[in-house]
């Protein structure tokens, strides 16, 4: 096969059996790889009603056809499973080099089943695969685990691992690779921990075959040129990183502040990308084959929060910053470092702390409940300590580890959890930006911005400007972005390549790479297929139209202050049109006609 390696690795962690299977070329063509292929395998093999933290759940690591090639910024992979935070299908995407190395080792998919009897790690060296004892690694943080594994396997190995958070089954624990890159959302790290799997180390010596080398070189060259010439992809992200978004979201009144109580934070600039570049940035960082380098190598010298690492990204700076009423960039970055070291999703961590802060400010929880942690709004030290406690499973951290919805429910106020399908909404206010609210509500993994990033047209004006306050055209826009993103996630490409190229460009590269003829419409259709399959999974897991919703604060409480004062999310108004655009019935279920069209019937 070209583009794909043609092999699936299956590991039964309970029995220790390791086997190789052939990748069905038709499945590869229809689902591409990564998120798509992983979801298809979950659909075929796992009961959607399984307990996510039980041995019956499966954990899948999968790169895409582009991963490991010189397609620009295309080294990504997905971790696919049933997510413990949401109960939905979960596919968490990450960059770095791990995905490419899996391809170099000869694998399109790694399926992990059951549960190991004791802490273990998987060592993959081309075709040689071993399950090894990880008792000496259990309890270690991500950097220590990674360094130790370099010593035990190969200094050239790439390592994906969990930190203490995943071991302790924090419901939003992440899988970290190359120490600083995260498959962050929905608790995929907790699933790995539930299987007693500490890490996967991989080293490969092979290459990815290309069907038409000349055409692939040409298509990749054209794509790279477009990305570099685009003012956003070519310059802005490298200089300021994603954190540059703080100020524009604040200016339009769409920066969720104090747990989404309002959309404007007066001192937001202190935690924005400009401040980050001036005070903490050491160097930009990029992933495998990346030509954009949005990553931030940073350092904090303030003795109170001293540290070095990568980040924060925009959502992280927002979550530990304005969402908690904090404008101390050093504290924000320290919290980010804790998340990377202990293996926590920064968005859900920030959103959960913000929820706790609001409950504390309203007297719903007290110092006794928080075991002495003063979660007053703006208390940066307490916020950082809350993150650390969550990651190590101590004190009030044990309750924060449940995520905001379960935490708030314990104290009788689930309405104060700013989530969709129990996953914390990221850094864009639905009352200020109508389309992103519709995306949150309909997203197959709940509160997620990246899978339907309509902020790009609605706020940034890329590729064209849509009025953020309008509802007209938003169902179509959201569905298109969701479909395209699903295809890109399944290909191994980075979403930031969309600042430069479109479906036709991905299709040209994919066709030349694989030898399978894809048009731009075919590429998007792959994404639509994946989206609908995720929807079917969630329907079988018990999700209904009632779950396509936002917290009542978003739909019933007008924005109290700022440039978007007076607005509410009109997601309920847009939902019927969204279902119609999707080809679903009034209850939000894919129709037989739609399933037949997508070859899912």
């Amino acid at each position: 096969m070209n583009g794909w390696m043609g092999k699936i690795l299956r590991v039964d962690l309970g029995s220790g059996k390791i086997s190789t299977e052939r990748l069905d070329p038709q499945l590869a063509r229809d689902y591409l790889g990564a998120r798509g292929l992983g979801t298809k395998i979950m659909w075929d093999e796992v009961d959607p009603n399984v307990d996510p933290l039980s041995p019956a759940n499966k954990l899948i690591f999968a790169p895409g056809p582009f991963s490991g090639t010189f397609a620009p910024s295309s080294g990504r992979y997905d971790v696919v499973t049933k997510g413990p935070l949401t109960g939905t299908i979960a596919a968490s995407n990450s960059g770095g080099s791990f995905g490419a190395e899996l391809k170099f080792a000869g694998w399109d998919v790694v399926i992990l089943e059951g549960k190991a009897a004791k802490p273990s790690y998987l060592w993959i060296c081309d075709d040689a695969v071993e399950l090894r004892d990880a008792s000496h690694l259990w309890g270690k943080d991500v950097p220590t685990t990674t360094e130790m594994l370099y010593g035990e396997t190969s200094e050239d190995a790439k390592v994906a691992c969990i930190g203490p958070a995943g071991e302790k089954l924090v419901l939003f624990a992440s899988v970290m690779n190359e120490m600083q890159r995260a498959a962050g959302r929905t608790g995929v790290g907790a699933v790995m921990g539930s299987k007693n799997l500490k890490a996967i180390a991989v080293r490969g010596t092979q290459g990815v075959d290309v069907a038409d080398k000349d055409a692939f070189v040409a298509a990749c060259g054209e794509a790279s040129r477009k990305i570099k010439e685009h003012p956003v992809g070519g310059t802005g992200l490298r200089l300021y990183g994603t954190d540059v978004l703080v100020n524009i979201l604040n200016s339009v009144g769409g920066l969720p502040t104090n747990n989404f109580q309002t959309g404007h934070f007066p001192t937001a600039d202190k935690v924005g990308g400009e401040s980050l570049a001036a005070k903490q940035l050491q160097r930009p960082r990029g992933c495998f084959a990346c030509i954009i380098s949005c990553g931030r190598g940073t350092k904090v010298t303030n003795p109170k929060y001293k540290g070095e690492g990568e980040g924060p990204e925009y959502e992280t700076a927002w979550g530990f910053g304005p969402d908690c009423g904090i404008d101390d960039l050093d504290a924000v970055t320290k919290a980010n470092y804790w998340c990377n070291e202990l293996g926590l999703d920064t968005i859900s961590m920030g959103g959960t702390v913000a929820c706790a802060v609001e409950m504390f400010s309203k007297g719903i929880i007290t110092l006794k409940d928080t075991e002495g942690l003063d979660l007053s709004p703006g208390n940066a030290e307490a916020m950082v300590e809350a993150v650390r406690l969550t990651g190590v499973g101590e004190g009030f951290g044990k309750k924060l580890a449940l995520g905001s919805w379960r935490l708030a429910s314990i104290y009788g106020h689930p309405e104060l959890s700013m989530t969709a399908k129990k996953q914390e909404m990221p850094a864009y206010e639905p009352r200020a930006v109508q389309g992103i609210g519709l995306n949150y509500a309909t997203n197959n993994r709940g509160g997620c911005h990246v899978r339907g990033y309509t902020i790009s047209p609605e706020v940034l004006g890329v590729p064209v400007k849509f009025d953020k306050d309008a509802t007209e055209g938003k169902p179509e826009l959201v569905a298109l972005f969701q479909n395209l993103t699903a295809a890109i996630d399944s290909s191994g490409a980075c979403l930031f390549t969309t600042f430069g190229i479109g479906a036709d460009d991905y299709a040209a590269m994919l066709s030349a790479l694989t030898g399978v003829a894809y048009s731009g419409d075919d590429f998007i259709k792959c994404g639509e297929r994946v989206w609908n399959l995720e929807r079917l999974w969630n329907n079988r897991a018990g999700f209904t139209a009632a779950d396509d919703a936002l917290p009542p604060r978003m739909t019933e409480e007008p924005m109290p202050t700022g440039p978007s004062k007076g607005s509410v999310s009109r997601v309920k108004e847009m939902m019927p049109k969204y279902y119609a655009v999707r080809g679903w019935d009034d209850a939000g279920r894919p129709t037989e006609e739609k399933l037949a069209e997508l070859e899912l019937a």
Partner: protein
Amino acid sequence: MKVRYFALLRDATGKREEVWTRPAPDVRTLMHDLVARYDEPFAKWVMVGDALAPFVAVLLDGKDVRDRGGLDCSLDGVAEVDIFPPLAGG
């Protein structure tokens, strides 16, 4: 009226913000005056001839001019003008 600059435009102007006292009836006048003051390092990001450059955001008290008249938007009564070069994130 306060004019605020972000990202690359802070380097281009050497400022985060300034109080603008010159007459500026509309966004077009203001932008041309800013280009005249800050020249090429500023102009290359924000204007292409007499038009706003692609992906540039000009907000008048938080409202994007691209949604309501573009460069012809009046500045009458506007307290804050925020100017952003092309940005991305996610």
